[in-house]
């Protein structure tokens, strides 16, 4: 592969994460776990916006459903870690299909608005149905240990938690990279480049947009489930609009359509949030200003800029 190739960056990032897990102190390690989870979310969102040009403002639905799917599986079904993770992702996929069927057929602006509306309604319901979700206070759980061939591990051990998340980040990336290199990837890009034209090449575009949407949402719910399991907590706040906006910012900052670029966005924004919210109460005000500044500087994002300069 060429030296300046997004696969290079992705593998470098994964290697870096792997090493950091061993040498970082506990506090920083927790922050990096969060960054990795957000990278999964961001990368998934990139499939929606970066690969098929569908600007969803409702991905907090899947993040929240993923987290609650996992947490509720533990609370009500006494499920193990892996099962609850699967439960979170599974629930996310189900909702993704339902939401996708309604929304994917809509034109650009309607799509944005309706995904935002659906997400807001989920947020309302989550806050209202406190018996199920715990409302804004949320639900806390204890996570049981899980068994792998030969060894029993617990997420309460920081290193286990770290590499558990890293494993899924790497697995998700490899899956997406495979898909992007497959025919489906080319079809996605062609839809992004000129959706109408693709119809005249014999493709039922709605079907492929739905696939992209569901794939993207699935990763969002994976991120949510990982987040819930890591924090051992889920709250109605996970459905808030803020969690729908974040992935967009991560992708715009890091580089749309590059898969690994959004990781950069997630890392930078996490650092920003961590350090700024400590000394400035109105951190969101700066966040808003930062969004405007980012848009001004580059629409292609950081990795997009680098790749453009260095060739593909």
């Amino acid at each position: 592969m060429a030296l300046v190739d997004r696969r290079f960056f992705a593998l470098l990032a994964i290697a870096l994460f792997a090493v950091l897990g061993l040498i970082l102190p506990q506090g920083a390690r927790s922050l990096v776990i969060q960054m990795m989870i957000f990278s999964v979310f961001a990368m998934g969102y990139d499939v929606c916006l970066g690969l098929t040009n569908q600007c969803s403002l409702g991905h907090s639905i899947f993040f929240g459903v993923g987290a609650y799917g996992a947490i509720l599986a533990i609370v009500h079904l006494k499920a193990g870690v892996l099962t609850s993770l699967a439960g979170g992702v599974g629930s996310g996929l189900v909702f993704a299909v339902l939401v996708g069927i309604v929304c994917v057929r809509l034109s650009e602006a309607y799509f944005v608005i309706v995904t935002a509306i659906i997400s807001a309604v989920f947020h309302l319901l989550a806050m209202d149905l406190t018996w199920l979700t715990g409302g804004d206070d949320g639900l806390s759980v204890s996570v049981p240990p899980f068994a792998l061939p030969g060894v029993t591990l617990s997420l309460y051990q920081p290193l286990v938690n770290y590499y558990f998340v890293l494993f899924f980040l790497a697995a998700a990336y490899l899956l997406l990279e495979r898909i992007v290199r497959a025919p489906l990837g080319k079809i996605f890009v062609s839809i992004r480049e000129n959706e109408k034209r693709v119809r005249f090449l014999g493709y039922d575009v709605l079907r492929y947009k739905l696939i992209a949407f569901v794939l993207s949402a699935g990763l969002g719910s994976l991120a949510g489930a990982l987040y819930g399991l890591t924090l051992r907590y889920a709250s109605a706040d996970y459905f808030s609009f803020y969690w729908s906006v974040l992935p967009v910012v991560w992708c715009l900052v890091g580089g749309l359509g590059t898969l690994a670029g959004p990781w950069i966005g997630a890392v930078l924004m996490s650092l920003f949030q961590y350090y700024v919210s400590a000394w400035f109460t109105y951190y969101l005000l700066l966040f808003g200003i930062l969004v405007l500044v980012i848009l001004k500087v580059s629409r292609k994002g950081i990795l997009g800029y680098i790749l453009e300069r260095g060739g593909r």
Partner: protein
Amino acid sequence: MSDWLLNVLFLLINGLVWGLIIALISLGLSLIFGVMGIVNMAHGDLYMVGAVLGFSLFPFLGNFWLALLVVPVIVALIAAPMERFILRPYEGYHAVTMIATVGISFILQQAALAWYGGVPKKMVDPWPVTFHFLGVDYAGYRFLIAAVSIVILAAIWLFLYRTPYGVLIRASIQDRDMASAMGIDVNKVLIATFVLGSVLAAVGGVLAAPVTQVSYLMGNDVALLAFIVVIIGGLGSLEGTLVAALGLCSLEGVMACILSPTQSRAAIFVVMVAILMVRPRGLFGGAER
């Protein structure tokens, strides 16, 4: 008349009054989308700004009517540079513009939080008069809201359908390139539309302030409702917006006697999804193939 029927009537009238306010706000949103193609995620926050300013200025000015005149001017002064310097540069890039409005939304909310505080407050009733109507006490101020809203809506209609500048705006909704090709200064139309739309939201906020809790987050809920109205009515369709606003709010108002607020909001949402499955562009939205 039976008590229950009176109750429903009361809720219906309340719903219609609220519907008029929502109609103003949604109209602004629809205009902005129709002419500029922008999904303005900060629209609800302009409503909030109107309410906060109205709340703050009312004791200062002593007169509600004065507040109703001063607030639009202030908001226009905020909205115009917003369009010119933040939104105009991204002309044509709709996703980017929309994210820019999200950024603006955060800024407005946090600024309001910092200046006005996080505690929701109730504003003093500008017209503490009560009417007796069919055996029910009805607040005079709500009639004021209705009257003012109707006057404004009528004025907007006159403006859009009877003045040359209104024709320019409607032409730009129909076909922007054509309008530009006919020598219309599209930039002026853009700023004017954005300011008009924002002012409508802010006026809605001033009118709503005495009957609702004024807080820095109040824009979120109203924005959600305005977006639902505009989707059902059809983005860019002014008649559709009016019909949808009045219809939905009276429906929601009446449902309040059997359902909780969240449940009635969810019911409205189901109505929206149902309409979208059949007509993906809303009731009055543009034609399909």
